[in-house]
């Protein structure tokens, strides 16, 4: 198994004819992903990396049976692309696009929930189940098959940590970058629940960062509901308050969202918290 995506996932790429869409279609195929269709309005009939392009998501779904979508559409049009996919019956939508207006994010996440569709992101690197499929932009080379589930709010920091796991001989079931924006479709708690119920996942790695209270809420959830061992790293321990550290979500204000509060909450829930990213692999290796 693995969670959310596997070899049976039939992937549609929205915005396939753009530079990013094209590049990552190739990379996903190289990873072994079954990319079945692309959508760019006005470009029906073209082929990108041997993948047929359609004008609408509904056409693509009817012709190819696509079940998941990945979105490379620019921010002003991202919500429309997501809504189109939801209405066409897609059940998993990975929104790579960054800088999506927060009110658009709230609307599309709410609509998806109503229709029973899962959104990952926006502003996320997507997800990968090594040996099976990748729906995202994570570099192919860092993964290896195994039984650690990784959930992260970051992009490149996720690659860093997964890479150090792989180098330590620790494989992953599925790695999910949930995104760094204040409003995201799938949060830590929902991913923890999926990993807890996945027979192929034995351990869970959680990568958080300063800002908001998602890690604290996850810690409460872990205490009550998670039986598998959880390891964590929180970025931004040394970030000054009041300064936004890149991500829209990453800011410590009025004492809320500090790394200390997150680390304390996680440790009290029995989570082993690493001081630096590479220490996660060491902590897991110690427990093997």
């Amino acid at each position, binding site marked *: 198994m693995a969670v959310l995506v596997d070899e049976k996932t039939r992937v549609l790429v929205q915005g396939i004819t753009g*530079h*990013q869409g094209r590049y990552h279609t190739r990379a996903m195929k190289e990873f072994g992903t079954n990319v079945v269709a692309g959508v760019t309005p006005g470009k029906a009939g073209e082929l990108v990396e041997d993948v047929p392009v359609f004008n609408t998501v509904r056409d693509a779904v009817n012709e190819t049976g696509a079940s998941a979508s990945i979105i490379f559409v620019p*921010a*002003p049009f991202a919500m429309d692309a997501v809504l189109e996919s939801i209405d066409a019956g897609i059940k998993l939508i990975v929104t790579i696009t960054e*800088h*999506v*207006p*927060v*009110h658009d*994010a*709230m*609307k599309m996440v*709410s*609509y998806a929930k*109503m229709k029973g569709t899962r959104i990952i992101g926006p502003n996320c*690197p997507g997800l990968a189940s090594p040996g099976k499929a990748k729906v995202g*932009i*994570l*570099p192919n*080379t*860092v993964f290896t098959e195994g039984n650690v589930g990784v959930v*992260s*709010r*970051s*992009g*490149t*920091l*996720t*690659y*860093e940590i997964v*890479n150090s796991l792989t180098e330590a001989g620790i494989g992953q079931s599925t790695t999910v970058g949930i995104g*760094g924006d*204040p*409003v*995201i479709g799938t949060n830590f708690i929902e991913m923890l629940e999926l990993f807890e119920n996945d027979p192929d996942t034995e351990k869970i790695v959680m*990568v958080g*960062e*300063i800002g*908001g*209270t*998602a890690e604290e*809420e996850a810690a409460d959830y872990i205490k009550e509901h998670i039986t598998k061992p959880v390891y964590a790293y929180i*970025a*931004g*321990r*040394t*970030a*000054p308050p009041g*300064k*936004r*550290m*890149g*991500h*829209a*979500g*990453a800011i410590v204000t009025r004492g809320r969202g500090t790394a200390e509060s997150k680390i304390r909450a996680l440790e009290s829930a029995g989570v082993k918290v690493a*001081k*630096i*990213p*590479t220490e996660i692999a060491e902590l897991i290796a110690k427990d093997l």
Partner: protein
Amino acid sequence: MKLYEYMAKEIFKKHGIPVPEGYTVEKPEDIRPFEGEVVLKSQVLVGGRGKAGGIKFASGLEEARKIAEQLLGMDIKGYRVRKLLIEPKINIQKEYYMSFIVDRSSREAMLIASAEGGVEIESVPDEKLFRRTINPLIGIQPNVIRALSYKLGLTKEQAKGMVRIVNGLWEVFTQEDADLAEINPLVLTPDGFVAADAKLIINDDSLFRHKDLEIVEEEYTPLEREAREKGIAFVQLDGNIGVIANGAGLTMATLDVLSLYEGKAGTFLDLGGTDNPEKVKEAFGIIREAPIDVVFLNIFGGITKCDTVATGVVEAMKDRPMNMPIVARIKGVNEEEGKEILRSEGIHAFSTLDEAAREAVKLAGGE
């Protein structure tokens, strides 16, 4: 983007929320003759200005101009007062609080109101707050406003007035793409509710559809402003190691690792995802102006490829050599090509973050 109070009030008024009839001045002599009392409010992008002495009352023109003289140019928590909002003093019967925020946990909007206004909302106990998540697709419904009015103990007449305020603020929040729309205090006067203060933060990612808004510059350092214009996430810090990395999480983690080895970062520079060496050159252009002793480049290649970054570094050096050591750590997509390019410029690139961080700290310590 935070708006000044006077800008927020103009927008509130447009959406049907009553605000005092005021105007702004940048010079004391621009204050017009008035009857009764006026309030002079310093326009700064920081809370707590009342306590800091930034809000004063005056009952005559001469007094008002004298106070304006003192307020203009004053420093409030690092923000200089450049503008005053002059308003007639309002007759306060009671103060309330109301706001809409983006609630991360529910992923919906949240309406917060309280009969305890005029104070920091964080200090109001939970049981005195009215809090309700508002679905973005449904919007404000009458039952919510009724529940709010009961909770706040409003009379029938007051509750009627409240409908206009809640609906108006919801309109502001949604139509202006706000992260936060807040009235504190919302004042009950003999003529009904008035927004005595207005706070509005527009979502940065939504500014493209609010081109009519005047851009409000936060108090950035000149370097931070330059970086912002170039679309680079940059924060100036107080250490001497200039950090350039790709991705916000990785850049933060780089700061953390440096601090573990007792180094201090002087910059947070997130290249983001880029396929263009030009962006790397621009980043070096910014970082070279910062008071640092070592550059620490930490790249994990994905969208941003290692050789692209290396090419940018080399081109930046060709334009203008750096007169300080560069410690590089590159890993990921096109790692070997990137290392080779850097080697040609005499820059050794490490593979692990730990090794590189230790080297950077060593060089920053002057050893």
